[in-house]
């Protein structure tokens, strides 16, 4: 089963993404902050992380940097609200595999996730 980690400081967003992807047959874990995400990540070892950019404490970009340093194989899709182009570019430079803007179009997100996972399974 494919493991998915959703990181967002809004519990509601985590919840509906979890319910959505579980419906689709993924195994989903959630984390409410960057620090929590790192903690969960070590045990859960997900294939893909949906990572919110703007979070209190350790923000999305720092978390991304950490993931890509210690677990470069894990795919990361950034979830952005109103971030500037600059921030998005920084995220892509840090190794983010793609980004998607809020409010989320779930169909589109599902396709993105699948695309990344297919690649993963092939390799």
């Amino acid at each position, binding site marked *: 089963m494919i493991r998915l980690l959703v990181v967002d400081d*809004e519990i*509601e*967003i985590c919840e*509906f*993404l979890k*319910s*959505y992807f579980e*419906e689709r047959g993924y195994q989903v874990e959630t984390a409410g902050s960057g620090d929590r995400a790192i903690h969960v990540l070590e045990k859960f070892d997900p294939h893909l992380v949906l990572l919110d950019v*703007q979070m209190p404490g350790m923000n999305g970009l720092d978390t991304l940097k950490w993931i890509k340093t210690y677990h470069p194989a894990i795919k990361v899709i950034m979830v952005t*609200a*109103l971030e*500037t*182009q*600059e921030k998005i570019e920084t995220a892509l430079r840090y190794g983010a595999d793609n980004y998607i803007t*809020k*409010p*989320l*179009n*779930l*169909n589109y997100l599902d396709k993105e996730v699948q695309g990344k996972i297919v690649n993963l399974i092939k390799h």
Partner: protein
Amino acid sequence: MKLYLRRRKKLLKKLFLGLGFFVIGFLLLMMLSLSEPGSDVLRPSQIYLFLSLMCICVIAAYKPLDFAISLLFRNWLFKNKSNTQFLLMHLAEELETVLNLHELGNLVVNTFGEVLHLKTVALYASRGEGRDYEVVSTYGWSLTEARKSPMSLKAAIMELISSHGQYVLVRDKVIRAMGWKDATRLSHDFNALRASWVVPVYRKLELVGFLAFSAADTESIIFDGADFQFFKEFASKIAAPLRNALRVDVMQEEIKKLQDEQSELVQTTKQEAIEQLASGIAHEIHNPLAIISGKAQILLLKKDKMGISPQVEEMLKAIVTQTQRASDIARKLLMFSQGGGEPPEPLNLVQILQDTIALISYQTSIEGIRITSAFHGDIPFFEGNVHEIREVFFNLILNAVQSLQEKGGKIHCEINYLEREKMIEFFVLDTGPGIPKESIQKLFNPFFTTRHENVGLGLFVTKQIVHRYGGTVRVESRLGEGSLFLVLLPCRTPRKAGKEQETAMV
């Protein structure tokens, strides 16, 4: 007046001296004629003696007599001169109640110029220690002309005044007394002041300012020592009022500066507050929107399993689209508050405009609305942010479309390059109902709208973007005829992009 009493004494002294000489001469004559009573006719030697004595007396008496007579004559003739002086002294007393610097200055120079029949008069004053002496008022020449030559403390004439104190400076005398180099500098200053005479205005030991004046014809008016004495007195009388008026003026100046600074500060603070608020709202609103939209989408996906009726499905779809719309508003707010962020790139404005028109035709119902566009001149690439420029085009055209929504009509967009001004001109002309005058003022205010379904941010954001590029937005409108929105954007890198062309779309 004191001045005239002193003068009268002098006059009498001279008169008595002249008369005295005559009496002596007459007595001598009598003595000679009495010495030889026998003879009827005077001997030639006696006649010569008499004549020579007479001559001596007349010669001795001539000067004082002449002076006395001329003074008497002058005093009688210049009765109005004493009137003049009375008038000026009266004015000086009146001035004590005048606090407005320009009113005071004008009173002084105009009265001075009129009553003394002068050609030019200028009143100069310093607003504070160490500051230049600037013109306050002029008579006979323009104030703007006089403003060109303020007198610094280092000017030759100012040095002369400060070294000589209260004395009246007479141009010709002063220049003649100076060395060649100083004389050149001084005559330059006198020329700048257009003055033949300069009267310093001292308040105790402080030089408040000076009066500079000249006569039309130097021969016609010649002032004497007494006049100069009077000028000095007049100057010392106006010194205190002038000082007070200057202080008031400086104070008013400072108050005005403070008020300006304050209003500017209020303006920027307001602007900053709006920007902060906008960015705050934009950020905060996004997560709730994402949740609403996300949950509605999940419900839609589960519709078969949950048995959702078509009516509810419609509603859920509406929730998804409306949250998207709300998030667009938040995005606009953020665009306004952040000021771009992306580095500018060369843009093909013609292409962007065409894309925008296509997008609008696709997004909104433009039945009965005809949109045309035209481009004149080689329109250069414009250095900017594509999102921002598209936003400007989009908002202005959408605004026009919405104004035509009820009755239909024509919209004409045009981009022109104004070669001489190095400006790009973009305008949108519609045949809509027009905008009432009172609304034009508020048109660019945030959240101003005449249509209920609108947020009222479009034109506000447009104006912010255009201003960011150093451009301007202008609106002209006639009720019943239509409106024109004209944007001017400065374009510093003229490079060729679009060719002249005309297109039309229905």
